[in-house]
């Protein structure tokens, strides 16, 4: 466990138990998150493929047709990315309540901007998809391409906000330095993580499209300028070379991680994942060497291998986070327990203490004094005036105080005081008359 720095905030946790055992939440978090990030990858990567293919389509129409087909997958994957994001968000809220919400607040404006940015990005992808067959030439085509690029750029930016939060939550000792979203990017190793994520988006989309267009019952009627093996080969290639690149970006991420959460266990898990990754790349390149009749026959093997890699990386990431936050979580637990004990002790003594004696009229007058002063008008009329109106009629004050009306247009209406009880009100009325007369 790492010693905590002096300026690390140790807040009090919410005094409610977790609704399910912690390990259930951990499993849910890791698995649901991977499902979510898969669809995010396909959304982000897909938007890149669409932009590039549409641009290539200016020279050769077959690429334009391919771009259009990919665009149809993006709009579906983007909806699944959102809906599958809710489960992991639920889990991370529960498991890291104090760290997660704090990171949200510290990057607050950006966090809130997620909502309009995603809406705009989604509307742009629909606009892009549904104007494909109508905005086909000249300036309209350029505008069409620009819409695709705008959507892609938004898809580039939005993950950065989530990444900033996921990163910032792990380093509470740095929170004091943060002044908004952009300054939070300099903490931890946001950039290497971002590059790793972007590369994964391209690679995963490549793998997905190799299977999507390569599947037996795929409708390729709009892609008659391509053959099925050709499409398989193309997307396999993208996946293989980008995954090879991950052997540079992955270590870059790992070795720039702040040392606070690095444990042997993290290394073991990550390097095991990387070893399976190496095997996956070998199978991928082997597949690429096969001829047209046989390419794609190992697709599900590759998918299974990738699943292991991703599960390894996802687990490694969780183990790192747990190690990085172990000290913080323990300190929070300790502080929360100490606080709860102090509150319980206080409440016990309070309950044991003799019931408060009946309040004297002077003590009760605290309820009135904020608005009624002896001889100046504060919020309500001064006591001198009240004493004049109700001279010899304390019951009039009681009746009024129970259900006040509105007499003076220049003053706010008095709230009812019925909660003080009839007897207390009567005592107060007498005191007010007395005070009012004395102040004259």
């Amino acid at each position, binding site marked *: 466990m790492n010693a905590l720095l002096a300026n690390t905030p140790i807040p009090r946790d919410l005094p409610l138990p977790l*609704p399910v055992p912690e390990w259930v939440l951990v499993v849910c978090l890791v698995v649901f998150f991977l499902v979510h990030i898969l669809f995010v990858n396909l959304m982000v990567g897909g938007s890149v493929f669409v932009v590039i293919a549409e641009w290539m389509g200016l020279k050769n129409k077959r690429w334009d047709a391919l771009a259009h087909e990919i665009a149809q997958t993006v709009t579906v994957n983007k909806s699944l990315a959102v809906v599958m994001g809710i489960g992991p968000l639920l889990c991370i809220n529960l498991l890291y309540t104090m760290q997660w919400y704090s990171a949200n607040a510290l990057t607050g404006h950006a966090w809130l901007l997620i909502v309009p940015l995603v809406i705009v990005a989604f509307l742009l992808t*629909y606009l892009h998809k549904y104007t494909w067959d109508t905005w086909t030439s000249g300036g309209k085509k350029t505008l069409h391409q620009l819409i695709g690029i705008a959507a892609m750029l938004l898809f580039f930016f939005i993950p950065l906000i989530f990444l900033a939060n996921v990163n910032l939550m792990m380093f509470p000792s740095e929170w004091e330095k943060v002044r908004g979203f952009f300054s939070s990017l300099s903490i931890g190793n946001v950039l290497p993580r971002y590059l790793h994520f972007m590369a994964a988006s391209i690679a995963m989309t490549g793998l997905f499209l190799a299977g999507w267009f390569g599947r037996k019952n795929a409708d390729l009627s709009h892609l008659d300028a391509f053959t099925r093996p050709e499409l398989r080969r193309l997307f396999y290639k993208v996946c293989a070379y980008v995954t090879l690149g991950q052997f540079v970006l992955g270590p870059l991420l790992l070795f720039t991680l702040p040392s606070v959460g690095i444990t042997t266990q993290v290394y073991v898990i990550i390097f095991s994942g990387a070893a399976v990754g190496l095997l996956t790349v070998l199978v991928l390149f082997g597949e690429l060497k096969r001829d047209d009749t046989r390419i794609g026959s190992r697709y599900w093997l590759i998918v299974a291998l990738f699943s292991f890699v991703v599960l390894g990386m996802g687990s490694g990431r969780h183990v790192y986070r747990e190690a990085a936050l172990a000290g913080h979580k323990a300190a929070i637990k300790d502080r929360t327990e100490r606080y709860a004990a102090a509150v319980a002790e206080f409440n016990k003594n309070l309950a044991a203490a003799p019931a408060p004696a009946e309040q004297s009229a002077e003590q009760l007058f605290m309820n009135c004094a904020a608005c009624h002063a002896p001889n100046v008008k504060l919020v309500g009329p001064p006591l001198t005036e009240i004493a004049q109106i109700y001279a010899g009629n304390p019951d009039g004050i009681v009746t009024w105080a129970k259900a006040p009306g509105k007499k003076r247009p220049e003053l706010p209406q008095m709230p009812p005081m019925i909660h003080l009880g009839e007897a207390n009100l009567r005592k107060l009325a007498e005191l007010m008359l007395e005070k009012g007369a004395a102040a004259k």
Partner: protein
Amino acid sequence: MDFPSYYLDHLAGGRLIIGLIATLHVLINHPLAVGAYPLLTWMEWWAHKNNRPDVDHLAYRITFVVFIVTTTVGAMTGVGIWLSTSLFAPFAIGSLLRVFFWGWFSEWLVFISEVALIMWWFLTWKKADTPEKKRKHIKIGVALSIMSWLTMALIVAVLGFMMKPGEWNQTRAFWDAMTNPLYLPQLGFRTFFALMTGSVFLWFASFFFTKKKSALNPDPRGLREWIVYRLSHVVLISLLGTFLFGTWYWNAVPETMKANSSVALLTQEFMNWHGQFQTLLGWTIIAFLVVGIGGLGSSFMIPRWALLIPSFMGIWLLGHFERAREFMRKPWVIGEYMYSNGVHKDELAFLQSEGLLKHATYVKHREITEANKAECGQDIFMLACSRCHSTTGLNGVIEKFTAMYGADKPWDSAGMQLFIKGMHQTRTFMPPFPGTDAEAGALVAYLQQLRANPQTLPGAQSAGIVIAPETTKPAMTAAAQPKR
């Protein structure tokens, strides 16, 4: 609250943002999802049964609009309620997630199916070209209608749960929420309201899709007559349901309100709300009634713009309805458990005796001195007031005190301090001040400084956080506390 405070000074602390996102979400969800899906499914079924491709095509085109809006603005404002609440009231949403986990979890599952079904339904519509495929396709629409209603039914339970006075914090059980006396009237009101506004939406949209003759639409005038005549029936029937459930709700509210209010009195603001709701409900029903009856007569009697009137009335009514929930909750964010500033009921007396500053994390000072008084007051404002009030903006504290103490004369600090300590008794929607007398004094010092020199108070998202070291003395209990 023990989180860095996200804060938007100009927007009543930012609560307005949650309200805005939530209202937009409900305004899309009710008519376009809950209301429109069953109606569109019914159109598809009718077209299939009576072999009317023009009706099917009209349903398809309206579904396109619904599909685009619900999967972008609809879905993201739903998530947005959560994202924004995480910023403005993490203590509340964090507690609710822990208690109501299974509610939220099943809500998620239903939501997944809803999104999958709308995509499946819309994107395969034109591919269902044989009677068998069409029958299967209609079933997707039925499943979607059920799921979108179920999403609403679950979330209404969550909303009711936040108001359930007293009981849940002993049992902390999911089903408590379902037995909330407001649950059924609220759900019924929303269901019929959704159908009523959903039909008017379909009606309105059909104006745009029955303009021109085309191969798929040989008789646009006849088609519009067909749909308007039927939608009028739906409007009239669901109007009756809206009225009955709305009235039930209206009658059930004061009981719940009384149970919620610690001193059993209806505040003036609530009485206002209650009266307005009745009036609004009446006028909205009349507006829909006129449109419904007009539509029965002839589809051309009601012009396009006239449909906007009941729609706006409906929006107004629903907005008013939603405000009631907010209002009735006060001073709680979770009934009888947590105040709207995040202070727990059972820690209130402790904090009033020990002080807020001593136990908070994100504050500059722990001890109040003459020199740091206003700075301490600012932190206290952030901890105790900022979840609902701005400084000088919307629902600003300066505005509130000006209404009480006047704009043109000095404010009496001693009086203000007394007022702050006792305000929850006279203004029952305010939580009790959760600090010591000295802290109330520091708050007053800050308010006086703010009045003299109005300055925007920045939140943690721009100013960052400051952490005063925890006091080294062990937390003192009441028994051990020396007399001052």
